């Protein structure tokens, strides 16, 4: 296998994995605050459809991405209100958002199927394949999130809300406000993740085009043990599997694409088993529970 092959797989994995990266980072922040959103797929779809529609209508992909991020933020805040404000079951609320996103995106994007847009322009650096701005910003975003979560007061408070809300409350923070902030931020990134697919990568819109990426992102958060830096690696692994099998096909080799796609999930399960036996769970301790304030 030539260097050419490896770099082709890598660059394709990076390109197709960018949307997954952003969505996963968003979900990670939300989960660090103690909330799991199973409906991330719906948020991404809303981002993809709004982003594409806005790009077509205004002619600017930047406006499109912005609109998508705001739409994702709004949708996630709806989810957040139900879970934080009304104390709803997180899994049920998340799945409801999945259906919401499936339906809303079909309605929004419906009249734009087949529309032609100019996608995000590539940022050309000498010697490297032209990636668009969002691709370049992916890893730095992960770094910034890592720094925010692990090196700032606010990040500590947010993580505390996810580990033990009562402790955060005792330290003077409002866990529910922190959770709202996390949910808003997560929705923003989720919308961007969806929009990258439609505005930059394929430059088209089709119903359900995220094809399960939102769910993959949820698995990826687990794979990365809730650490943003590992998310970058994980996004490469998860999207690399698909890039690898397509490049192998183009070279004439054949390995069952389905078996290859299974590998990241099997790896995740194996990792969970291994770490679990040591009784060390990386998950935020209060993940999935809702804080009800001081009784």
């Amino acid at each position, binding site marked *: 296998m030539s260097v*050419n092959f490896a770099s*082709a797989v890598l660059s*394709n994995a990076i*390109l*197709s994995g960018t949307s997954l990266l952003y969505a996963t980072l968003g979900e990670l922040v939300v989960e660090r605050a103690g909330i799991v959103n199973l409906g991330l797929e719906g948020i991404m779809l809303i981002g993809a459809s709004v982003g594409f529609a806005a790009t077509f209508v205004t002619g600017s992909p930047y406006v499109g991405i912005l609109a998508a991020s705001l739409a994702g933020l709004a949708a996630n805040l709806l989810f957040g209100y139900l879970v934080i404000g009304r104390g709803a079951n997180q899994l049920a609320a998340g799945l409801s958002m999945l259906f919401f996103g499936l339906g809303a995106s079909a309605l929004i994007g419906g009249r734009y*199927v*087949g*529309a*032609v847009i100019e*996608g995000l322009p590539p940022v050309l650096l000498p010697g490297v394949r032209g990636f668009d701005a969002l691709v370049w910003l992916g890893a730095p975003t992960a770094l910034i999130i890592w720094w925010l979560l692990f090196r700032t007061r606010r990040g500590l408070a947010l993580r505390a809300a996810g580990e033990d809300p009562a402790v955060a409350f005792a330290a003077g923070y409002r866990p529910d406000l922190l959770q709202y902030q996390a949910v808003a931020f997560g929705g923003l990134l989720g919308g961007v993740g969806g929009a990258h*697919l439609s505005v930059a*990568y*394929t*430059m*088209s819109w*089709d*119903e359900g*085009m995220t*094809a399960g990426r939102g769910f993959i992102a949820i698995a990826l958060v687990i794979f990365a043990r809730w650490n943003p830096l590992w998310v970058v690696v994980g996004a490469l692994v998860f999207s690399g599997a*698909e*890039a690898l099998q*397509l*490049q192998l*096909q*183009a*070279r*004439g080799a*054949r390995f069952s*694409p389905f078996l290859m796609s299974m590998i990241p999930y099997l790896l995740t399960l194996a990792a969970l088993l291994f770490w679990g036996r040591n009784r060390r769970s990386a998950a935020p301790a209060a993940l999935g529970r809702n804080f009800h304030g001081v009784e």
Partner: protein
Amino acid sequence: MTKLPMLMAACLLLLATRPAQAESALTVGAVYVGSVNDYGYNQAMHEGLEAMKAATPGLTLLEAENVPETAEVDRVMQGMIQQGAKLIFATSFGYQQFAFDLSKRNPDVVFEHAGGWMQGPNFGNFFGATQAAWYPMGVAAGKMTKSNTLGFVVGVPIGFAIGNVNAFELGARSVNPKAQVRVVVTGSWSDKTKETAAANALIDQGADVLTMHVDSPATIIRAAENHGVLSIGFQSVAARALAPKGWITGLGFNWGPFMTATAKSVMAHEFKPAMVREGLGEGMLAVAPFGAKVPKDVQALVNAAVEKVSKGYNPFTGPITDNKGVVRLKEGESLGGDKMGGLDWYVAGVIGEAK
């Protein structure tokens, strides 16, 4: 507990009001697996049906898009029958069994399925004989390529798609003995992200002409345009609009005449089920206009190939060896159109695994 009776009363009231049914000479239903704006397969079907509607006064057309190839399509078609449809076009390959079963339960409704083989007293099958038509496309690609690598994205690796790839390579080889076709299978008729990734993979492996057998050529053509790569379209000649720089030519379906004839025969109660497979010669398939970059001598070669195929030339005539070295057709032997569905080997020069 007065709520429940109130609700029931409301339901009965709604039921009682009947909408005014417009009188219609014939109600036709059509089910699409994707969107009719896809610059591809579904758009070509839709345009054919619109042509049928324009040519048949008093015809009502019911359409449903994005219907998956699952049990859902049964409900949609039945719903159309409930709305009075007497002719149903099941336009996607995967609808066949469901449409066939439904045809047995509704003997007074005529069903036409695209791309399959089943037939019944009220069930007909139609498609374009695409394989031979890919031969001139291969001629065009073979002449226009500089890297001698052609890229072909296949959606679902059925025998007919393999036949298209084979004819494409045979055409390319006939004008350029060094031309090779690399094949990437996405596994689905329509998956935009996979198609983009597949196009990228082919371009990375050196392809400078891309073509495809998926429902919508749009994504792959756009990816080609972005990378400065040439493209050949399929399914609908409208795809030309997507590649102002890199368009060579393309194939498109021309369903209008067939659909109009079918509708008229149903209205006259003269429908006879048939297995209709027509190609370039009969006008079921059309060749798109050439792109700006195609020189006149190449155009002449392609047109000559189109002529040849229209007059009945079968590119699957021996001697033909497959890409593993096995001789598949001896001198003088040829493979008929009815055998295309069972193809499971690629001709020499195609890089890929058919099985």
